[in-house]
């Protein structure tokens, strides 16, 4: 389960991370691009709005400029009297509501040689026109900016706006110098008009961008002339605000503003509270006054569309990612669910419970579907196989059990009680058989034909298993049946061969060594049907003599079979070692055979041991020699020792 979850988790996290990354890059690019476009649009929009306001303000102020320039021209071109000046000033104010007050101020001793100061000044006061003569020891207008600056510069000038404590209003004065053309253009005075700037508040306040965007106006020196926050007006300048906020960038913008530049810049606040906020400032000059209109737009509002858009995009992407997660989860589930089922099925199958394991045929033809199909096929194949195996095993077990019985029966044919004839001291006889796993075909037998003749034989049926076993039983029976007094071993073998070969459709055969001992003389008559020659140990000479005798295997050839007859006489203590090829052809781990030489050596070295011990020792040696190699053939040994002495002693 964990592993399956792991696949889903990995898929989701990898795919989501990948798509998030791609999205983030696209989003960032899109954001920057959109922002650029929005800022460009906002700048164009601000420029448009500001231009309207600037034109409106300049439209009003230009009227004042033209009137004053006209008055100055009038002063220069028409000979003046004091009375004419009064009339002119009154007309100017009465006909131009923009003008709060107007003066024509003269240099000392110009229009009137007697007067140091001559400056008639008319101004509005509660809907009436009032007059005041400017100048006096405490009112030296020659030092005033509105007089001194145009005089020094020789050109019309808008003064820095100032607070008029008498009128309680903020004014700016437009002053135009005029000259006496009769005396070569000598400067003789200034025509000035005071403009009440109160209306600027409304005009500038009407300029708005977005929700809380606002406009403000600064003078040539950067002084705030209008601003929604009245506290700032005439008190602060853009530079003092920059200083309060420690904002070098704002100061640089302020300098650009008073240089009459146009721009659109980001600032980090505009006020004296030190509050930091992201704002955008557009500025545009009022060229003839040297003032600058500023338009402030909060970044949030400016970018609110893009922010809203991107919030929506993010929401959509989040939804998309969720959908993608679900999608991936379902895909991964479609992969992992059959896998999980397969895993469970594997466990069931491993337990062998095929019926618990329910795998439905896949609906898809993909790899998982193929795997499932294969698995289902494997399951049914396995089931069939196991069923067959079970049956086979049962059959095999039955056969094995029958074989076991057959084997037991076979073994029961062989005499296992030694010494077999305890009352007979003339000879010792000991035999042992170490059967191979399967039922083999080795056997031995011994019995008295008459009082003095002991028949002994060892045989090895070709092949293994039941046929060999049956063949052995038949051979054994035939051998016993054909053994009769007076018949020599070769005649017996001849007869048995004839019988066996006659009905031998399976071409089985048997090798037989057949001997008859005359226990009185020690003579041994023998014949061999293709069997390994037994070894005769002569005690006197310590010789080991193979008892070879002509003859072929028994049971195959039906006719013209001649078995030779061998004869030896055993002396006291001599013994014959009979064996089957299971002894000499035993294989060791190096695939070497045990060999007759080895057997001979073993016999010679241990000739003085009792024959039972010798038999067991040979068998042990063969087993030891074979090591881990399985025993393929029966190992059968039989030793017959002749003890004539014992008879003499008796």
């Amino acid at each position, binding site marked *: 389960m964990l592993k399956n979850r792991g696949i889903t988790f990995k898929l989701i996290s990898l795919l989501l991370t990948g798509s998030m990354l791609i999205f983030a890059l696209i989003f960032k690019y899109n954001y920057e691009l959109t922002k650029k476009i929005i800022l460009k649009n906002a700048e164009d929009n601000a420029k448009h709005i500001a231009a309207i306001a600037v034109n409106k303000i300049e439209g009003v102020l230009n009227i004042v400029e033209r009137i004053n320039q006209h008055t100055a021209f009038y002063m220069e071109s028409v000979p003046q009297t004091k009375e004419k000046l009064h009339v002119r000033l009154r007309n100017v104010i009465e006909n131009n509501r923009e003008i709060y007050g107007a003066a024509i101020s003269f240099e000392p001793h110009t229009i009137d040689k007697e007067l140091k100061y001559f400056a008639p000044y008319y101004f509005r006061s509660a809907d009436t026109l009032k007059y005041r003569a400017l100048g006096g020891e*405490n009112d*030296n207008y*020659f*030092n*005033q*900016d509105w007089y*001194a*600056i145009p005089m*020094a*510069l020789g050109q019309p*000038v808008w*003064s*820095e706006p100032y*607070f008029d*404590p008498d009128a309680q209003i903020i004014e700016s004065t437009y002053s135009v110098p005029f000259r006496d053309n009769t005396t070569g253009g000598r400067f003789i005075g200034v025509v000035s008009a005071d403009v009440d700037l109160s209306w600027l508040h409304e005009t500038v306040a009407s300029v708005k961008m977005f929700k809380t965007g606002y406009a403000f106006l600064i003078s*040539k*020196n*950067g*002084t705030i002339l209008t601003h929604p926050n009245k506290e700032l007006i*005439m*008190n*602060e*300048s853009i*530079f*003092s*605000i920059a*200083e*309060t906020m420690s904002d070098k960038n704002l100061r640089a913008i*302020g*300098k650009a503003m*008073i240089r009459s530049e146009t721009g659109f810049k980001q600032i980090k606040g505009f006020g*004296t509270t030190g509050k930091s906020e992201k704002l955008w400032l557009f500025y545009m000059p009022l060229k003839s006054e040297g003032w600058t209109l500023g338009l402030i737009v909060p970044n949030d509002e400016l970018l609110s569309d893009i922010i809203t858009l991107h919030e929506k995009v993010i929401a959509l992407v989040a939804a998309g990612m969720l959908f993608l997660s679900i999608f991936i989860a379902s895909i991964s589930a479609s992969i992992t669910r059959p896998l999980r089922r397969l895993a469970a099925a594997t466990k069931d199958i491993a337990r062998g419970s095929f019926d618990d394991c329910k795998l439905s045929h896949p609906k898809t033809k993909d790899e998982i579907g193929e795997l499932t199909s294969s698995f289902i096929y494997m399951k049914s194949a396995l089931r069939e196989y196991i069923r067959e195996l079970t049956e086979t095993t049962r059959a095999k077990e039955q056969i094995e059990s029958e074989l076991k019985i057959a084997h037991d029966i076979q073994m029961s044919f062989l005499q296992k009680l030694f010494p077999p004839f305890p009352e007979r001291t003339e000879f010792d006889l000991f035999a042992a058989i170490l059967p191979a796993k399967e039922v083999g075909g080795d056997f031995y037998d011994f019995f008295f034909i008459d009082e003095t003749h002991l028949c002994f034989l060892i045989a090895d049926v070709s092949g293994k298993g039941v046929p060999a076993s049956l063949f052995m039983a038949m051979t054994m029976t035939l051998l016993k049946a054909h053994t009769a007094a007076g018949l020599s071993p070769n005649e017996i073998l001849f007869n048995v061969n004839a019988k066996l070969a006659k009905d031998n459709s399976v071409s089985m055969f048997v090798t037989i060594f057949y001997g008859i001992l005359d226990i009185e003389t020690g003579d041994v008559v023998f014949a061999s049907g293709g069997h390994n020659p037994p070894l005769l140990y002569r005690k006197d000479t310590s010789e080991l003599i193979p008892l070879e005798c002509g003859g072929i295997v028994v049971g195959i050839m039906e006719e013209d079979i001649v078995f030779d007859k061998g004869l030896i006489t055993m002396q006291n203590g001599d013994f014959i070692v009979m064996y089957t090829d299971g002894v000499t052809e035993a294989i060791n781990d190096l695939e070497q055979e045990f060999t007759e030489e080895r057997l001979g050596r073993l016999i010679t070295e241990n000739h003085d041991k009792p024959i039972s011990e010798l038999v067991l020792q040979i068998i042990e040696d063969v087993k030891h020699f074979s090591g881990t190699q399985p025993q393929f053939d029966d190992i059968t040994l039989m030793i017959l020792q002749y003890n004539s002495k014992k008879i003499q002693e008796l």
Partner: protein
Amino acid sequence: MITALVVLASAALVYGETGLKQASFVPQWLPQAQFAGYYVALDKGIYKKRGIDLKIITGGPENPAAALHDNGTADFASMWLLSAIQARANGKKLVNIAQILRRTSQMLITRKNSGIGEPQALNGKKVSLWAGDYSIQGMAFLNKYDLKVQLVNQSETVNLFMSGAVDAVSAMLYNEYHTIVNSGLDPEELAVFSFYEHGLDFPEDGLYVSEDKLAADSALCCAFVQASIEGWLYAFAHPDEAVEIVMKYMKMAHIPSNKAHQKWMLSKIRDLIIPDNNTAKIGILTQADYQRTAAMLKVGGLTETIPQFDSFYKGCVKK
């Protein structure tokens, strides 16, 4: 006339109902941080603590301190040392009871890009000087370097300079210099001729009282001086609060103000009040400073006699 003054003086120095002595003071200009110590002392009750119920009369062009002092409207006045010496030389019986600004910060400012890097370069240029006593130092500077310039009268603003109508403008470091900077000219764009650095250091604002009033109640005079100095020390220790207080009085007087400028002014004024960082010397007028200043007046032909230092200076803070 003298009798009338004495009568006025005794009328002024009466005990109020609160048990405080009533007194009035006029600074030589409109409320600003140049006079922070007095407004702070008033606002923080320091004068009251010293037994004075002080009234600060708003000075300025329409209320010249010297005139208000002369006519007895104000018991105490803040005046320029240069002006006071002249006044005493001309027979006015006023005495210095504390020299508050012990150094000058007056200067001439030019634009660096006008190429005026040394005094001689001012020859033939338009230089604006304030009228009256405020031009004395400027004139002394021009004389020192034997400069022939086109003098232009300077108003209270620096607009003549800002508009380019003059090449050099008179300025106080604590005031006009900063106004120029906050009108858009960076300090790096300005070339400054500091009168102090050019050997023309004349102490500026001092506290004055008439001889008669001092004789009538020297304890009150010294209490006024002590309270004022305490006010200054409080202002230096609490510059933000001091600026708030000053701006309150500025607002009351309908004077444009901004914190940045007043903070600057207070910090620069501090350098003039305690140029040596020794607060024990606040208010002291040294004879050397007096003689140098008076001698300059005589050289400039503005006065014929130099009043005796001992008769002119009756400082409450003695060294």
